[in-house]
């Protein structure tokens, strides 16, 4: 696995290299600034498979670098791990919002680095395998269209949108927060009658709808610093700050009014008017402590009880209850 490590501190760079070597990772490139990182990317014969970034760096910091990396089509799904001393909630949230898949706090613990990068390697290998299997299916469709071939229940990743993250990143975020997620609220947002849209449209169009809805949700909830992950069945898991002043009814109206303004149309030009319903949010209670995975479970459970479309809940519940350590559940 080819890894690019970026840190302005030369001691930290050497330590990370030693830790990675210890765990058998030998193809490592070191960069002490974003400028050096871009030089290495430009001149690499093969693309990098994983990035380790420091958060605080002069000129271009880790967050900016991460966002720029995500703008490269070949790096939209590459694991980016922050290794940093900045461990406050805002820093962690911001890192995930721009595309981090994991976040490791300094001081550098070689074993932790080895474990986290091994998990990232597993993701890379799975992605390679998925791409291999996807090739014949893609060829049967229009090859030039860039969208993942997915079924309605697939929690297909949505790339390139600020604050919209993969399910693995979401789990890692919650895990990294531990007790710090006391200020978080988890909600499930469902596109009403998404199966109708999925049935009527091509997968490319259905995926475009998911992207548009995800973007509208992220924009509408911006004040609550949300992290949003697609969960299949047209449903999103959203983690946001508890201190929001707007009610979920207010958010629903705002999201749906923005969606209505998009004026989307199916390929046959008939109008496509997706609307979103927000499930009952799950919060930490004063009397019982909830682990991060329990909080997602609570939100899914609360949504499952409602009449409307929350259908990814049953599937996810099975996964969530089987998983005591979400960070390893990939």
């Amino acid at each position, binding site marked *: 696995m080819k890894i690019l490590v970026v840190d302005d*501190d*030369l*001691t*930290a760079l*050497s*330590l990370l290299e*030693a*830790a990675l*070597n*210890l*765990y*058998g990772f030998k193809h490592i490139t070191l960069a002490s600034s974003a400028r050096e990182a871009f030089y290495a990317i430009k001149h690499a014969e093969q693309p990098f498979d994983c990035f380790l970034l420091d958060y*605080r760096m002069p000129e271009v910091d880790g967050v900016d670098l991460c966002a720029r990396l995500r703008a490269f089509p070949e790096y939209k799904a590459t694991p980016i791990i922050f290794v*940093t*001393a900045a461990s406050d909630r805002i820093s962690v949230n911001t890192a995930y919002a721009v595309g981090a898949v994991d976040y490791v706090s*300094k*001081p*550098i*613990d*070689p074993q932790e680095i*080895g*474990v986290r990068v*091994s*998990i990232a*390697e*597993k993701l890379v290998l799975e992605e390679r395998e998925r791409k291999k299997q996807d090739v014949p299916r893609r060829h049967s469709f229009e090859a030039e269209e860039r969208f993942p071939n997915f079924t309605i229940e697939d929690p297909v990743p949505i790339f390139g949108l600020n604050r919209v993250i993969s399910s693995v990143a979401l789990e890692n975020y919650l895990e990294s927060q531990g007790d710090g997620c006391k200020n978080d609220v988890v909600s499930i947002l469902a596109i009403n009658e998404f199966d109708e849209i999925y049935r009527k449209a091509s997968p490319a169009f259905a995926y475009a709808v998911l992207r548009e809805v995800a973007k509208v949700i992220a924009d509408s909830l911006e004040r609550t610093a949300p992290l949003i992950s697609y969960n299949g069945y047209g449903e999103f898991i959203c983690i946001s700050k508890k201190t929001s002043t707007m009610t979920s009814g207010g958010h629903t109206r705002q999201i749906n009014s923005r969606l209505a303004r998009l004026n989307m149309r199916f390929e046959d030009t008939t109008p496509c008017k997706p609307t979103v319903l927000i499930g009952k949010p799950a919060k930490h209670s004063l009397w019982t402590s909830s682990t991060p995975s329990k909080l997602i479970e609570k939100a899914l459970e609360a949504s499952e009880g409602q009449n409307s479309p929350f259908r990814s809940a049953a599937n996810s519940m099975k996964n969530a209850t089987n998983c005591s350590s979400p960070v390893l559940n990939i």
Partner: protein
Amino acid sequence: MRSGPDADSLSQFEATISKIRISFLVNLREHRDNLGEMVEGILNNQNVFACLSQVGWIAHKIAGVAATMQLSELGLIAARTEKLVDEAVIDTSGEGLSTELLEAIGALYSQVCDACSKQVAP
């Protein structure tokens, strides 16, 4: 998941860490000298904001690696100083630097001096 490191890799790792430690201690001496200047600047009320930012930066550098270099106490005080500097930099109350912050900077400087004097570095 990859298997854990074998004995050879571990001894190689330890040899590498020893080399990194030596270079860290050389850098620490530079940090000590810079910190000394910054502490003087803060005490004499000269470019306090710039001095504080520099102290925060040095503390940040030390906090990230000191514990791995078997200097856990230094790492802890560096992390605390960094946090307090960050809070002071965004503080707009105009009340000046807190005693807690000044004490933390003093403790950091003293820990750095201590580490430099005790550790053998070329």
